[in-house]
């Protein structure tokens, strides 16, 4: 038994010598990414969504295929409107955008796995980002922004309500489908650090609250959704904050 500690230490050291070197070369290099990129380009159709997993490899994926990813797509509200999704992943990771989907095709390129997913996309009949010009506000007007929310990019309407004075932003004649889906969060990591209070959003239709959400500083991009009667209607987003400089960022789509 006296030899066990020494053997253990030698075994751990030998494992570390091997594992450290293996780990350093465990991530696929540019050749694998180029091969994976070529496969995507060969099957790519305009409007396809391209995602990468895990998140930390996103810059490498964008370097290979970024020309096929418009800024608006990279900063999407969510992936529901995309019927075809290409997922390039390493180390067995999966993108949150393909959760629950089964790939119709999958191929590995020296550690970069290319999966293609197909599904019926959400049909968007109204998007508040596209109808900003028609919106009215009881205070500050929201601005179309490409913002960092929860350390991810999102195109959204951004506005900072006065503390304790909820802001009502109305979209008259917003075309509605069967469902209104949206997200809300607090933009800017530094104001999230310095001011820790959450923000609130409520969606009103015909004077009734359809949906509501609370987004705290660590909650990221918070989803809300509600069933809606199809047809044009005035939809009001009520945004509230208890502190100044809360950069509320929200987006919403009416879906068929």
């Amino acid at each position, binding site marked *: 038994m006296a030899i066990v*500690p020494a053997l253990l*230490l030698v075994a751990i050291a030998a494992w570390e010598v091997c594992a450290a070197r293996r780990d350093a070369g465990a991530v696929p290099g540019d050749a694998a990414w180029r091969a994976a990129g070529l496969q995507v380009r060969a099957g790519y159709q305009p409007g396809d969504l391209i995602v990468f997993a895990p998140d930390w490899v996103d810059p490498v994926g964008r370097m290979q295929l970024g020309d096929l990813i418009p800024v608006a797509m990279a900063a999407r509200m969510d992936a529901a409107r995309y019927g075809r999704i290409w997922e390039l992943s390493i180390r067995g990771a999966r993108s949150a955008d393909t959760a629950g989907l089964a790939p119709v095709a999958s191929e590995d390129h020296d550690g970069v796995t290319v999966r293609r997913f197909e599904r019926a996309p959400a049909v968007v009949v109204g998007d508040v980002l596209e109808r900003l010009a028609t919106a009215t506000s009881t205070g500050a007007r929201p601005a179309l922004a490409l913002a960092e929310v929860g350390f991810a990019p999102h195109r959204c309407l951004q506005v900072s309500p006065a503390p304790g004075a909820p802001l009502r932003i109305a979209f008259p004649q917003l075309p509605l489908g069967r469902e209104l889906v949206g997200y809300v969060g607090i933009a800017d990591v530094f104001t999230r650090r310095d001011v820790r209070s959450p923000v609130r959003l409520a969606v009103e239709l015909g004077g009734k609250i359809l949906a509501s959400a609370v987004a705290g500083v660590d909650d990221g991009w918070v989803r809300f959704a509600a069933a809606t009667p199809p047809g044009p209607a005035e939809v009001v987003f009520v945004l509230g904050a208890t502190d100044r400089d809360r950069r509320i960022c929200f987006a919403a789509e009416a879906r068929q």
Partner: protein
Amino acid sequence: MSRRARLLVGWALAVVAVVVVMIDQRDVGIARDEVVYIQHGEHYASWWLGLVRLEHGVSAASITQTFGGPSATDNNREHPPLMKTLFGLSERLLHDRLGVADEVTAARLPSAMMHGVAVLVVYLFALELAGLAEAILAALLLLLLPRALFHAGLACFDAPTMTLWFATVYAYGRALDGRAWPWQVGVLWGLALATKHTALLLPFALGVHYLVVGWRSDAARAAHGAGKLGAILGHRWRVIASLAVLGPVTLYAVWPWLWFAPVSHVRDWLAFHLSHVHYNYEYLGRNWNAPRFPWHVALVTTLFTVPVATLAAAAVGGGVWIAGRVRGAGAPVVLLALSAAASIGPFLLGTTPIFGAEKHWMPALPTICIAAAVGAVWAGRAAAGRRASEARGRGAGIVVIAVGACLVAASAVEVGVAEPYALTWYNALAGGAPGGADLGMNRQFWGVAARGVLPELVAEAAAPPRSTYVYTHDAAPAWALYQRLQLIPGTLLDAGWEQAGIDRSQLAIVIHERHFNRHDYLIWRSYGTVQPSFVLRAGGVPIVSVYRRPGYGGEAVP
């Protein structure tokens, strides 16, 4: 081996450490804070040289102009001056006068030399505690800690703080022998204080240890009641006096900013750190920038940033200590444990800023390395005890060397894969750099990785004398130094801050940390593309992206 020979071994290891650090730092980029310390170090050194040459006297005006000012960060007065002054003096000598080193290398030499001293002190401590084999192994394991090696190559305070902290611990331990003038412990603590405020934690370790040793002293055992308390507190009172008097006096002597209004200036110094802003820090998949922080940040980060074999051996060494197989006069093991606890303990509270990670609790590392050496040597000797009965001594030596060599090899391999981007590196237990990224551990800080994309930027830019504007992101403070080092031409211009700088730029870089994602998005908005032209990786993990404005082909800037 004679005492002199043993000392020579320690000094040789120290010299090797300095050389290794100086070689390693050549490829390490310039840290954001380093720029500030180098710049102020130049000013501090000039002031001292001017004083020695009688070019100026000691006036509140000249001191304030160099060392202080009305605002909390004027002339970097929030940090004591010892290392900055040494950076400046080294630069004056090696760069300005002798011309044997560039200004960054010259400024970094004092940190490297301090690391050599750390290796020496760890060697000496282990030598007195356990023996020559333990001493050599402990010194090598300290030298081959990837993160510590990285920090030792910067003109910053963290590695020197570890050195002076542990040197104080060592001097304190020796001072308990009852010597009449234990001045070393007070002076060293003063120098530690003059390096970084974290040295203020050291008396907690020394104080508890002093009480333990006092309680065990013959005088205390013989005394009763109030006399017992007096015996405990007074058994080596000169050591306490040295710390209490010479510590503050040394700090005062090397920090001219304290030469007038010392109370308010010390108060300002400490107040700055007691209310320090919480920088962003990624830990286990979440960005942390406000308390409460998880209590286990320091423990898990240490678990993932010290070579695994060293940690395993330290666990064995801890077991050996607990079993009481290593004892020494003055409870040295208790002292080591308290030293580590005082260094790392505040980070278990959940409110102490965690943004610097392991660099903030580096004084715990000597304890880990000494424990590892004790554990490895004990394991080797235990194994040899059964298997080499006839030539027991020689056999034990061979087994000890074999076990130690395996540990050293493991650490050396970790160093090899870690440098020069050691802040992105995690040990094999975490799965290396990609494993750390999978776990959501902090990617890097201080913008050092920008150096790795300088050749790419030069290749993408217009050929001199035409100019190109670069959004330099977190490397902006280091940009002028990179130009002076001729790593980039003077025509590669810093475009400025945030969106205005990006809009002016033709090239842009993003140094990847989670809270820096926003810089990608600012660039996307301005450049109209999400596609970087180059992504620098460490162990496959992205650390810097380079963007080229679409349509820009290296033509001149109007």
